[in-house]
């Protein structure tokens, strides 16, 4: 069993995580297919008269991408930690309550049907259509699963999980149907979407998702104590004075908001939500007051590093970050697990 308290002291661990995040951020700004010196990056960030190319690369490409990687990483990791705590299952992830499949259905609908739909009003598909549809469908799918899982104001976790499986299957069947009718170009685009990418990150994306994710990150400490109590069992938590149903509702809403927003701009990026909370649990223990913020930091670090690698590995082309994450994270996670046994 994983011990309640970890092996590492708390404060130095947080300091190390923060330092890693800072280093990762510097690395992400400094490196890329375009060779830039630290002075160039500095100029690109702050000078008003920097060279147009440097300005574009640093201010419009690398900076929003870095911030988005941090936010998306934090959102996925925190959602993973919250759901694993709520379901008391180390394998729980946002996919369970339909967020990923819903977002996929929304995104793929826009990719495949968008052109024909918007052609009716004689307009091109607006850039906002895809993230908005993905976000809306993620929330909608989660709401449906939640409704099915709740009876008379009480939510049954088992019912929630089973409803999730069924609704996920239906949503993925929808994606399958759309894949079938897609033409060649759409097929390639939707395949790329499911592999996840931050390549398109810009300030508009950031404005679109940052409020939701930041809101969740700020609200999450309030749930830590109740989640700790839930670890002892739902009825114990209730007797300890926690409103477990309200907690469930809040967690599901928060996860849907954060992950729905993240996925709508980045595509499907798996594994962060699983690996970040686990690494934290292995080192710091399962106290959610530490686990949640540490997971957020670690998720951000992981995604920033993975994204930096994704930009470099096949430059000047780009590698999908979802694959990158699984390729680096998978073996690393396995090694860590095997060392503990």
């Amino acid at each position, binding site marked *: 069993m994983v011990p309640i308290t970890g092996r590492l002291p708390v404060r130095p661990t947080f300091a190390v995580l923060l330092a890693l995040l800072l280093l990762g951020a510097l690395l992400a700004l400094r490196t890329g297919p375009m060779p830039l010196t630290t002075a160039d990056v500095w100029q690109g960030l702050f000078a008003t008269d920097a060279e*147009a190319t440097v300005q574009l690369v640093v201010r419009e490409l690398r900076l929003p991408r870095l911030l988005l990687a941090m936010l998306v990483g934090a959102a996925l990791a925190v959602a993973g930690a919250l759901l694993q705590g709520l379901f008391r299952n180390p394998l729980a992830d946002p996919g369970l309550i339909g967020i990923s499949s819903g977002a996929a259905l929304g995104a793929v609908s826009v990719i495949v049907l968008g052109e024909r739909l918007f052609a009716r009003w004689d307009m091109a598909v607006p850039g906002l259509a895809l993230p908005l549809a993905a976000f809306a469908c993620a929330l909608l799918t989660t709401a449906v699963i939640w409704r099915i899982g709740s009876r008379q104001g009480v939510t049954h976790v088992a019912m929630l999980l089973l409803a999730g499986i069924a609704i996920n299957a239906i949503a993925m069947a929808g994606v399958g149907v759309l894949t079938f009718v897609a033409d060649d170009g759409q097929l390639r685009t939707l395949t790329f979407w499911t592999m996840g990418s931050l390549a*398109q990150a810009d300030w508009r994306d950031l404005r679109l998702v940052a409020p939701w994710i930041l809101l969740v990150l700020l609200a999450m400490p309030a749930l830590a104590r109740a989640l700790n109590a839930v670890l002892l069992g739902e009825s114990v938590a209730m007797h300890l004075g926690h409103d477990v149903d309200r907690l469930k509702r809040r967690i599901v809403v928060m996860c849907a908001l954060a992950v729905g927003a993240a996925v709508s701009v980045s595509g499907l990026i798996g594994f962060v939500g699983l690996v970040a909370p686990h690494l934290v649990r292995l080192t710091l223990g399962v106290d959610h007051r530490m686990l949640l913020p540490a997971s957020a930091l670690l998720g951000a670090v992981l995604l920033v590093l993975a994204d930096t690698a994704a930009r470099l590995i096949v430059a000047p082309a780009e590698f999908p970050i979802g694959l990158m994450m699984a390729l680096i994270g998978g073996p690393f996670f396995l090694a860590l697990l095997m060392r503990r046994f």
Partner: protein
Amino acid sequence: MTSEAMSDAISDTISDIMKSRPAKRTVVAVRVPLLLACLLLAPPALAQRLVVAGGAVTEMVYALGAQDQLIAVDDTSVWPPAARALPKIGYVRELPVEGIVSLRPDKVLVSADEAGPARTLRQLERVTTVVPITATNSPEGVLARAQQVAKETGRVEAGAALVAELQAAFARINERLPLAQPPRVLCLLSAGGHGVRLAGQDTKAQALLDSLGLPNAVRDQRGYRPLSSEALLALAPDMVIIAEARPGEFRADDWPALAMTPAGRAGRILVADSMLLLGFGPRLPEAMTQVLDVASGAGEADVEIEREGGMAWSR
């Protein structure tokens, strides 16, 4: 050609003379004055760093002899084989901004129908010149494409020559049209081990058939759709064109039903490279001629015929 490239070429030629065997010297003796003449008479060709996204545009650049301007191409640029050796910028619909910017191109030529995402192109426009190359899938479209690429690469004379050459080729093809009995053609896209897909309306395959006035055997479907052996028999095409993504990818053994169609019995089956057939680049006349040869049953002697299980295969 740039003046540096020119002087390089001259010094290459001179070192050739030093090394070459006597028999080669006469050729070289012609080359040196020719190169010098070029240097003096040639219009100022562009010395630009060019990135191309779109296989047909890349073919056009090579056909115009402007390949020394190329610094990188996308993944669909697979012809001529030399293009494969250039740095790759990834898939044409998912172009990376920083990757392209890092190459510091003077100009980016993108195929107007494929290149994207739009946001990437807008960002690129801030630091370089992005030129969408017209992409109408027809002989006229190919001529317009040749002219535009010639203009953008500064190879106007080579462009005029290429356009004249293409026009002559199209004229030769048009002399053979319309066919007395145009066959109903089924176009298939081979996807390696994943089976084949048929080409319906609104596809480049349809455009190829339209250019020759051939009817598509598939009337009621749009885009590319998976094909079953039974559907193949039901369609009963008089001719089948198979576009391969990789040479030798289509295996006839997997499709015994093909031999039972009118096309299989008559030996009207054409297997060719998909970039040749559906690229709508400078090789369009070649593609049209190959299709026409099989469709009209003429020129079978020119086409290499393999016999496989009693079926005629033209490659």
